[in-house]
């Protein structure tokens, strides 16, 4: 099946799409029997250095309910200058600009190799990028200092016309006015009071257009003569001001009594940030960057009280319904997330603290708006600093790897309907002929909003085959799907990327083999895992596992079952939220790593080799490199560690040992370099406390229970009661045979 493999890879590279099935069963009945639904993993803005955007607008199907975009699958009558929509079969006239069209003179979108085309929209005002920093000042001095430096650094990375704003918060929330000379102004809000958007705008003086900002002075040529200019200013104008302002930023001055947490008004700060953008730049791409160093402790959205003796909620508390602020806080942040999403603004959360910071409650802000979520121990770590820097990384064209305010529209041919999407998006609630009644993930719509996305942002999109069994599709028929992504490019252009794909239909009874052969196991795994995680977010853990067990039996599932995406044991609620957040937006490769970490073994016996994620792989004379996406662990086997302690690597005669030690480090660097967010980098050895990162992941094939049964074989026993893969498989086999499932 090498062809299928190639086909899949080719498709992925060209269109950023991978389907669970690459030949589609032709009826609903058959499809449901396939267990794994027809679905795809879509990376809408997959980087295509080889794809230059076209500088004109797409041609739309004239049927109002369709509006599909002209694509290579359309039948074209060059003489009549007509084209037939391949979704609704409407015949359309080419627009005047296409008058010169002919077989030899085709526009790009008709060429088969351009199944993905990117259009640049020329009309309409270009809106600048907007970055609103929302900074927690209840930090330790050095943490704050580091954060300030990172922020100042970020200013230099922004394009000069980007608009920036600053909100700081602690016990109070301050919205800084950036345009003032000689005196620094800020609007201050109580951190305990929830304000409506209207109130916030009133208080910031945003609702009164009469407010003369520069009544006398000649109005500066400004793209946005908006009233908001006081709080959001082009960076080139207020660079110095803002740098100074950040430099003078002090820790929250209010005294924190012994035994209390600092009062942190994150909920109100975020609410104000959302309200501010809502009032000034609605429907314009903007990024709210929230930096927090601890949990919200007061006001709406508070996650924990300020008494230190009451710890922040754990999964245990949540299960016992003992997390008294959780529901309210979640509701608050959900409300904010929805508002931000409605206006096309995305929210990033950078949480750096040793304890939890309330990501569980706040996760919706990033998940619904496509923002980043970064979790670290301190702002004063390279993990944060580099991650943050990477946000502003640029592509081959010198543009930021970020896009804003995207809407993703999915169009399907008649046999298909779209059931939902899972990823950093919200539903736009657009019902259409191609919307399925069954929902998988965020459904009930054919359009989603993705407020912030980057070239790796990936959605899972689920379909339903609706063709009835008794209405066979003619041989050679193809189903088509068109993905239309409108977005604001980081160069401030509006663009539309259109991807149109088609797959063959096959009758499941007669052509089962074809279908089987076209199954993409990896994509299916990720898609199913997404479904699982999506359910896990909303349902009880055990139920999800049971559902998953029922759905499929595959190898990866063993690891998925043990992964932090489904298991909350040993993870704080924040960590779970963090892991799930990333799982729901990374592309297939990364997702797979998350599900089943990669383990490489380095030894004198040969080149590095991938080994089983099993305790038996932990050997004394090996160095292991594990990549779990979130962590990079380098583990020195017992002997190696002893050698290292003895200092052999420093001896010229053991230079090969030095190289052996260096090899995994180099490989790790490579991974670190490409990954966002920066993984936690752990270098440990046999018996080291940090070895737990490795031990918790490997298959516990040897435990204290069976150690002796396995004799004196190599490997490291794991002290756990978890079942090993072997036991799991045995159990599954039994189940598979005994039950009707």
């Amino acid at each position, binding site marked *: 099946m090498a062809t299928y493999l190639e086909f899949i890879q080719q498709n992925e590279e060209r269109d950023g799409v991978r389907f669970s099935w690459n030949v589609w069963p032709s009826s609903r009945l058959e499809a449901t029997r396939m267990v794994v639904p027809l679905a795809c993993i879509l990376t809408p803005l997959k980087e295509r250095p080889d794809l230059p955007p076209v500088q004109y607008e797409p041609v739309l199907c004239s049927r109002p309910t369709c509006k599909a975009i002209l694509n290579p699958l359309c039948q074209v009558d060059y003489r009549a200058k007509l084209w037939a929509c391949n979704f609704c079969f409407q015949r359309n006239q080419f627009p005047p600009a296409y008058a010169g069209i002919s077989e030899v003179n085709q526009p790009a979108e008709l060429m088969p190799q351009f199944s993905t085309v990117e259009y640049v929209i020329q009309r309409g005002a270009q809106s600048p990028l907007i970055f609103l920093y929302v900074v927690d000042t209840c930090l330790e001095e050095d943490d704050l200092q580091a954060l300030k430096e990172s922020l100042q650094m970020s200013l230099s990375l922004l394009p000069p016309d980007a608009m920036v704003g600053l909100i700081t918060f602690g016990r109070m929330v301050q919205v800084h006015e950036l345009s003032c000379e000689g*005196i620094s102004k800020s609007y201050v809000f109580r951190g305990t009071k929830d304000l409506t958007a209207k109130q916030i705008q009133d208080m910031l003086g945003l609702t009164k257009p009469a407010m003369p900002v520069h009544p006398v002075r000649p109005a500066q040529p400004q793209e946005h003569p908006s009233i908001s200019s006081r709080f959001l200013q082009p960076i080139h104008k207020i660079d110095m001001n803002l740098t100074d302002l950040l430099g003078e930023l002090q820790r929250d001055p209010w005294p924190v009594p012994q035994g209390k947490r600092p009062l942190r008004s994150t909920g109100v700060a975020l609410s104000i940030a959302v309200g501010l953008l809502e009032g000034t730049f609605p429907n314009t791409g903007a990024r709210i960057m929230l930096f927090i160093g601890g949990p919200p402790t007061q006001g709406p959205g508070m996650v924990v009280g300020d008494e230190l003796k009451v710890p922040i909620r754990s999964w245990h508390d949540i299960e016992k319904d003992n997390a008294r602020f959780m529901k309210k806080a979640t509701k608050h942040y959900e409300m904010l997330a929805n508002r931000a999403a409605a206006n096309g603004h995305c929210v990033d959360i950078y949480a750096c603290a040793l304890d939890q910071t309330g990501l569980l409650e706040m996760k919706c802000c990033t998940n619904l708006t496509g923002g980043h979520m970064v979790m670290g121990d301190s702002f004063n770590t390279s993990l944060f600093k580099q991650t943050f820097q990477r946000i502003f990384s640029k592509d081959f064209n010198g543009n930021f790897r970020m896009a804003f305010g995207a809407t993703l529209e999915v169009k399907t041919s008649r046999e298909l309907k779209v059931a939902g999407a899972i990823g950093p998006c919200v539903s736009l609630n657009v019902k259409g002929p191609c919307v399925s009644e069954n929902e998988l993930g965020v459904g009930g719509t054919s359009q989603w909003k993705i407020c912030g996305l980057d070239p790796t942002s990936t959605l899972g999109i689920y379909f339903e085959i609706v063709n009835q069994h008794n209405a066979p599709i003619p041989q050679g028929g193809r189903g088509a799907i068109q993905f239309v992504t409108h977005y604001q490019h980081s160069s401030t252009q509006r663009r539309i990327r259109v991807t149109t794909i088609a797959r063959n239909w096959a009758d499941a009874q007669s052509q089962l083999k074809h279908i089987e052969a076209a199954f993409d196991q990896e994509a299916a795994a990720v898609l199913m895992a997404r479904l699982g995680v999506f359910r896990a977010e909303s349902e009880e853990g055990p139920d999800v596992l049971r559902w998953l067990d029922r759905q499929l039996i595959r190898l990866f599932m063993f690891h998925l079952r043990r992964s932090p995406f489904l298991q909350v044991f040993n993870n704080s609620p924040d960590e779970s939220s963090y892991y799930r957040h990333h799982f729901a937006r990374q592309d297939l490769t990364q997702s797979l790593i998350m599900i089943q970490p990669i383990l490489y073994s380095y030894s004198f016996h040969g080149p590095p080799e991938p080994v089983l994620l099993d305790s038996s792989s932990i050997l004394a004379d090996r160095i292991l490199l594990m990549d779990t996406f979130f962590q990079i662990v380098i583990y020195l086997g017992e002997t190696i560690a002893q050698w290292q302690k003895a200092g052999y690597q420093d001896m010229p005669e053991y230079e090969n040992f030095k190289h052996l030690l260096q090899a995994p480090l180099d490989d790790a660097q490579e991974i670190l370099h490409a990954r966002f967010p920066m993984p936690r980098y752990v270098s440990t050895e046999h018996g080291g406390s940090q070895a737990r990162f490795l031990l918790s992941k490997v298959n516990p094939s040897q435990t204290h229970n069976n150690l002796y049964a396995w004799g004196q074989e190599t490997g490291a026993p794991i002290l756990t009661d978890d079942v090993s893969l072997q036991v799991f498989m045995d159990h599954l086999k039994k189940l598979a045979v005994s039950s009707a499932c």
Partner: protein
Amino acid sequence: MNLNQSAPPVPPFGQPQPAYLGHHQSSYGGQPGSTTAPTSYGAYNGPVPGYQQTPPPGVSRAPPSSGAPPASTAQGPCGQTAYGQFGQGDVQNGPSSTVQMQRLPGYQPFGSAILAPVVSQPAVLQPYGPPPTSAQVTAQLAGMQISGAVAPASPPSGLGYGPPTSLASASGSFPNSGLYGSYPQGQAPPLGQPQGHPGAQPPQRSVPLQASSFTPPASGGPRMPSMTGPLLPGQSFGGPPVSQPNHVSSPAPQVLPPGTQMTGPPGPPPPPMHSSQQPGYQLQQNGSYGPTRGPQSNYGSPYPGAAAFGSQPGPPQPLPPKRLDPDAIPSPIQVIEDDRNNRGSEPFVTGVRGQVPPLVTTNFLVKDQGNASPRYIRCTSYNIPCTSDMAKQAQVPLAAVIKPLARLPPEEASPYVVDHGESGPLRCNRCKAYMCPFMQFVEGGRRFQCCFCSCINDVPPQYFQHLDHTGKRVDAYDRPELSLGSYEFLATVDYCKNNKFPSPPAFIFMIDVSYNAIRSGLVRLLCEELKSLLDFLPSWVVEKVATVGNNVTFYREGGAEESAVRVGFVTYNKVLHFYNVKSSLAQPQMMVVSDVGDMFVPLLDGFLVNVNESQAVITSLLDQIPEMFADTRETETVFAPVIQAGMEALKAAECAGKLFLFHTSLPIAEAPGKLKNRDDRKLINTDKEKTLFQPQTGAYQTLAKECVAQGCCVDLFLFPNQYVDVATLSVVPQLTGGSVYKYACFQVENDQERFLSDLRRDVQKVVGFDAVMRVRTSTGIRAVDFFGAFYMSNTTDVELAGLDGDKTVTVEFKHDDRLNEESGALLQCALLYTSCAGQRRLRIHNLALNCCTQLADLYRNCETDTLINYMAKFAYRGVLNSPVKTVRDTLITQCAQILACYRKNCASPSSAGQLILPECMKLLPVYLNCVLKSDVLQPGAEVTTDDRAYVRQLVTSMDVAETNVFFYPRLLPLVRLSAGTKSPIENTTEPPAVRASEERLSNGDIYLLENGLNLFLWVGASVQQGVVQSLFGVSSFSQITSGLSVLPVLDNLLSKKVRGLIDSLRAQRSRYMKLIVVKQEDKLATLFKHFLVEDKSLSGGASYVDFLCHMHKEIRQLLS
């Protein structure tokens, strides 16, 4: 009064008018050109001219005064003696400790005037001129009496009244018409009478009193006796008896003054004329005299005389004028002058219980010998009735006006500060009174008996001291708390909030930056001023003076050091802007709080800063504020949130402090404390009028309560262009012990000086914060009611967020038991406060009063100024709850009852038609009338609702001196400065005042009028060109700019003098008085006339004479 009463008057009236006219002319015009003088006057005129020669009345006086002495000497023995005594009395007053004596002197002046006619007719006459004058005088007197008599004739009843009313109608035209009209006639008669009098000179006195003594025999008879009895009699009415003592001691020179006084009345040309009324007047005086006089019996006699008058109806009729002669009725000016002369020279030593201090208008020094200085406490009466029955009968309010932190003149030392170490001040275990000179040490000094509750307490060992043979502690004179009336204790931590020593207070400047404030230039002006003003924040440093015994240290206020007061800044319109001016900042930070509905303080560190440390940042801020808001269009403001913010800031900083609010407009922006315009003039004179004085919403009271709890005092500077609802806005300042300043239609050019001067004073003045005042009394009386700017959460503790040296608390006492004549009544006012340096202190004022079983003693030891202070405050509070008319009636009734009680119980029996006033209260009617016709109680058409509310709250915390001048403005003739005999430069003292009546204005003169809030320079139409030139730098009257507020600085004596005088007047008042130049007959003159309180006011207020008549009628009704 009698006059008024005289039924007949009515007819006379009609006549009088014409006569009056004539008279008027003669008197007034006299100078200018009294062409038409009634023939009858002729004689009169004769004298007048003499006087007139020196146009200004003052001048005329001078001569008389000089003349007086001789006159007295000339007089018969009795008279002379009396006189002499008077003089002495006056002089001695100072020295003589007896209250009575002092009183008398004061009184005497008055009496003297009267007396002059009677006793010393010769004398009087002489001063004026030869016998004829005397004759005239007497004649006048006679006339007066007659009229008085007349009154009786048509007895009391309606007459008195009738006249007034008729007068009123008659006078519609204005001032003089009716009343004055009568004068002429009155005078006429006098003339005739004079002659008769000469004969009866000895009796004259009686005559005057009796009005008419007319019948020499009757009056003479009685009087003579009285007079003779005591020398006093001569003074007869004047309170001879009392005065005598004083007089006795008084040296001859002083005699002169009396003489002057005496002459005074007659002196001024007009007076004589009026003298016709004098009779009635005199009666009053007599009355007053009578009372004062010890011997009521004497009175009795005079009265009879009066009776005689009554009988005399006949005569009066002929002398149709029943009008009282304004000069004959008690003159505030005279009383003030007399007291000044009699008591101003010697220090007032407080050692003796129950002494009545000199009047507030007198400059005197105080020596603390065990009782608090009158600068701290003044009482309505220094002799309290022993029983509540007596008190009820007399209706004299028993009240003390306390100014605990009063500023003292430089010659007087501020109270000692005593530090008793950790044990704190020594107090009675039961009633918690503080150790004071009245505490009685017993058992060889081991115990002491509380002078308030009689509890016996142990003396702690460290405080023990042996007693000397008189039972006094040996160290009594070493310890302020055992020998002084006023002193301070350093408070221990037990006296502090939360048992923590306080931090130094903070000042927060909160500046309205709305459109109005910016446009008027206020913000720029203010910011500019603050830059320099902040270097002069109050500092209050104590120096160690001495240490006695264990842990007892005395301190005294000492030199200034850097102020401990921290400052903060807020600007606001619809939202608030806080400023971070921390010294470490390169530039100030502004923090805007828009959530006015739920105010909070956005910053802690850097809001309140030390001025020196943050100098640069503050200066930068003050430079920028006007710029930042230069383009503002915001017209709406908030108010309550601003106060709330300041209060919260102090709370966050855990200190007390003061907010300086500079506000321009009605707070209509959506926020707590939002107000609407409810100014409705139609409510005036309805039952709903009180709502104009009440706050619109209760929110401000609640806010004020929080402020008080935090020790947050609010000073409000208002710059309204229209209605701002002062009644509501002033609630918080009022309840927190703050001040309200109002600059209507503020314009930088015109009002800058006044505002800046007030601001400087307000910022620099020493304030006590977070204060609690408690007044303890000895058993028998109890403090029951309190007036002033403060808050009370229970019935005994006066809570003051802030208290400065200008604020006064008036306390009313009631009996709850019998008092003992022996032990008297004691007051101890204890004020616990935090000084500007953040030191917690207790200031103690002790005062011992006498108690009496005779009402006469009460009436002899009253102080009218204090009484008026109390009554005004009582009335001004009353308008909050009752219709204004009810309040006015209550005042009149109470006053009538007081006087009637006197008449009934203390005065010697006499004709009911005679008005007899206690010496100490002879000014009560005139002052009360001033209160009644004040803007609050009887607003004129031009008085705004805000003005009334403003004045109402101002008066609430005024001290006696302020109310005195506020209700009865000072009117100072100026040209005398230059035309006088002395060189204007050398003569730096103020010219003697004249009575506040248009009648007293000469159109050839220039006058200054001040009432503590306003200052007018009135220029007569025919003032000499030279004067105009030298004062205004223009060549003629017509070129003077009306409404001018600054006199040009010209290098000539007159100009220097006048400007110097204006400066000195301003220096005397706690608020800067803006000068307004008013030209005679100018449109501003109407405004000016409003302050001529003896005249009928345009708003319907009665003239002095009318009111006196009315009072008399009321009294008679009560008596009958």
